[in-house]
């Protein structure tokens, strides 16, 4: 086989190109090259208005063209503001991979690349779609380039580069792409209802959707976080922080001062040398807001800071800055929340 040497060949596209020509005859797929391909569509399974992990990434990768499937499309579309440009949605309850694949097939047939996130739902839906459309599935991709898709192998230690010269279904590994933080308004949403498929497929029956356990959940995924800093006075106070957090369905984090002291596990440290988080709500108790801490804070929608020092950076960042003793405030909060919970419980009974 002749070897074509480009002046630079860090990735072996040139060689692969030849390989691929050699294989062309055996390939069963329609020949559309990705570089000229018109259509890449993100197919995003949603639940209760929430995007799956990697949901925004696939939409960005598909240059904004997306089809949302599941419950709560309007809400999910908001989370895609500035990312999605062309949005369609099929409102349908639960998660029914078999039925969805069958009914979506006609809608997807003309898309050269159907891209799903490799989230639990995306991962399980993609093979069904690929099977119905009778095209290859490239699962757990890192990147889609013209003519090739690289997928992740051996737990992220190796990349497998696939030449693509036909229509494919791809799942994108969440987190590998990232999304530029975009501002903008939500794209217009066009609702569709794919026709019923001829052949009925059986899917499992959903009995119950269980909420996450905030106390053990990975901080980087937590939507609500209560952070504690050197302003909190003891290990016990951090137990209290964790309790209050749990009552608010939030996770607890801390600054390096605290993790250095061993008051809370290192995995709970927020910041450049800890976990980078991106909650919607952040409540800071006795945190000064050093840049090493705030650099790992993401972009919360809402911040409350409780601190004795009115002028520290954390107070400046806050939507609500309370000049108060964080320890006692926490104490009172705990009492109030427990009381609230009790009253709710009795109300229910």
């Amino acid at each position, binding site marked *: 086989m002749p070897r074509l040497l480009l*002046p630079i060949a860090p990735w072996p596209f040139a060689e692969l190109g030849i390989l691929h020509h050699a294989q062309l005859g055996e390939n069963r797929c329609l020949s559309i090259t990705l570089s000229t391909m018109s259509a890449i569509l993100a197919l995003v399974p949603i639940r209760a208005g929430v995007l799956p992990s990697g949901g925004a990434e696939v939409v960005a990768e598909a240059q904004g063209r997306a089809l949302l499937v599941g419950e709560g499309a309007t809400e999910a579309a908001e989370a895609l503001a500035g990312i999605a440009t062309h949005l369609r949605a099929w409102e349908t309850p639960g998660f029914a991979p078999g039925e969805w694949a069958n009914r979506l097939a006609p809608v997807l047939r003309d898309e050269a690349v159907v891209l799903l996130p490799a989230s639990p739902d995306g991962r399980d839906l993609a093979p069904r779609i690929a099977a119905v459309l009778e095209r290859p599935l490239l699962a757990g991709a890192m990147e889609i380039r013209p003519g090739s898709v690289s997928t992740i192998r051996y737990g992220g230690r190796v990349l497998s580069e696939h030449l693509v010269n036909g229509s494919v279904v791809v799942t994108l590994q969440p987190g590998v792409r990232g999304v530029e933080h975009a501002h903008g308004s939500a794209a217009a949403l066009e609702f569709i209802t794919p026709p019923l498929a001829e052949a009925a497929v059986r899917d499992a029956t959903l009995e119950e959707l269980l909420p996450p356990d905030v106390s053990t959940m990975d901080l980087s995924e937590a939507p609500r976080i209560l952070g504690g800093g050197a302003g909190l006075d003891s290990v016990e106070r951090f137990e209290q922080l964790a309790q209050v957090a749990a009552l608010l369905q939030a996770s607890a984090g801390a600054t390096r001062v605290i993790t250095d002291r061993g008051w809370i596990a290192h995995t709970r440290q927020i910041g*450049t*040398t*800890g976990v*980078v988080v991106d909650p919607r709500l952040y409540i800071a108790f006795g945190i000064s807001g050093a*840049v090493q801490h705030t650099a790992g804070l993401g972009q919360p929608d809402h911040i409350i800071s409780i601190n004795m020092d*009115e002028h520290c950076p954390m107070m400046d960042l806050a939507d609500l800055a309370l000049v108060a003793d964080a320890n006692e405030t926490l104490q009172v909060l705990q009492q109030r929340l427990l009381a609230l919970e009790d009253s709710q419980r009795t109300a229910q009974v």
Partner: protein
Amino acid sequence: MTEQMIWTPLQLGPVTVSNRIVFSAHLTNYAEGGLPTEQHAAYYAERAKGGAGLIITEEHSTHPTDWPYEKLIHGFNREVIPGYRRITDAVHRHRVPIFAQINHNGGQASSMYSRLPVWAPSAVADPLFREVPKAVNAAEIAEIVASYALVAGHCVEGGFDGVELQCSHSSIVRGFLSPATNLRTDEYGGSLTNRARILIEIVAAVRAEIGPELALGVRLCGDELIEGGTRIDEAVEVAKMVEATGHVDYINTSIGVATASLFMIEASMHIPPGYAMFIPAAVRAAVDLPVVGVGRFKDPLQAERALSEGLCDLVGVVRGQIADPDFVRKAKAGFTDDTRLCLSCNQECVGRMGLNRWLGCIENPRTGRESLGVGTPQPVTVGRKVLVVGAGPAGMQAAIAAARNGHHVTVCEREAAAGGQVRLAASVPNRVEFGDLVRNQLNECGRLGVEFEYGVTVTAQEVGRRGADSVVIATGARPSTPYWMPEDLAGGSGWIVDVRDVLSGKAQPTGKVLVIDEIGFHHATSVGELLADRGCEVEIITPGMVVGQDLGITLDMENWWIRAGSKGILQTTNSGVMGIEGHTVQLQHHPTGTQLTREPDWLVLALPADPVDELYFELKAAGVDVYRAGDAVAPRRAHSAVIEGERVGAAITSADRTLAIR
């Protein structure tokens, strides 16, 4: 987060690096007579031993017209080769590859040392050197290209594994690339292709000289941060051209121009971490060559994150490894916490370069003195009981040096925590990293088994009671009382207070505050900022030509000006306090003798301090084996405290010399 990417080897053309941490190029001022020295070899070898994946030496000049500072290595002189060999042999012993950075500084230089006109693409004077260069002609361009090849040849002979072309922040190539300094109308000016022509020619010439066995890298600037200069889009285009030559194995990146925006290259702690990462990220998205990202990386986790997020393929850690040569080794062994984190203070590394002194580090007395064996353990046969008074930087370093040699050390500190004045200095906005000095020393003390007792004010009786063999006095400094201080206000209880009183919370100024800066460093400026943040109306007055004079050396000046401006801090120079009358401060503008007055609510003083040395003299008189270090000798800065502590601690000898065998 566990590190993973950072430990993955990578191929840079013919060279394999075993991890992703690069000791990127930087001046050291270790050269003598234009030649590399033993100190160079020892310095780089120490970092190689510490596990750096790749070492890139400081720049070597390619041509006699390039001699901007005294201690530059004259790569064009064949006599450098034995010195090169010494460096590469020393580094190769640790199986770490080493590249040479070669460069011509172009117009960013002066003719002072070379006594030759400075060469540049166009006759545009550099803002720092303020010297109009000679615009080179075609023959001279060819000569420059040839000079790169010549020096690259020396590097091959000298045993280097690769060559890096510094085309980034202080270079004639940068001069050509930048529309701000290249006004040519020939084929070397105008379009980007033309401006990049010399770079492409140099790349070809150097590759031809070094052959396929050595790696070739190009360091590019992503944003010069000067008016009309190179910006990221063009930098990315240049990177693509460089890749297209097929001769280059990796791209290093940088930001700013050494003579106009140096403070952005060697960013101090006021600049957020990761500030320059948009550059390698953009380059990496456009080319497939491995890309190095640099700038304020001090922690392996931070490096891991940049690598795994795909912002770069290698991370340059310069000051991090100046401060701790074992940066990589410690991280790899899982002792990240033991790393002596760089403070990004710029005091003894960058700061000394501008002063034409050899490179050191505020917290590592060994840096720059590796070849002399400073900091090498000299175990004593029989350890002494050593009592250190004061847990400031001087006391803790003395404890470290003594414990390292096998003495039994106890540190007594009056306060409830270690750190002395450093704790105060680090308590202002954006200067927390200075406090890592204390954290690092405490960590090291912990590893060496030094014992600490807090809340103990040591007196002569206390020393007697404890019966230590040797005592180190590191009691620091206290505010001085200026001659003009009204007697009833001395002691910092009234409206006239020291910066330390403000930082410790003893005084809480409000309203109109006048800060006097007679030290010319962070003392006045940082407290001024703190008070402005608290809503005070702040004016800083100094007898010097500028407020915070030495901030220039540490590259903090530019940002200080920006922040002072935005916080409404007033700066008045060339004026000193003459006296106080009631609540009126009498000042004199000394160049003109003009009298000024101010009536502030508070007067905050940053003045040269007094040593706390009474205990020392008392013990000395009593015949105790006593030493003194740091501000207690003469109030200066933290670096003096650290090196004195080191010297004193290392000087404590074995308890019983007669037992020493060899």
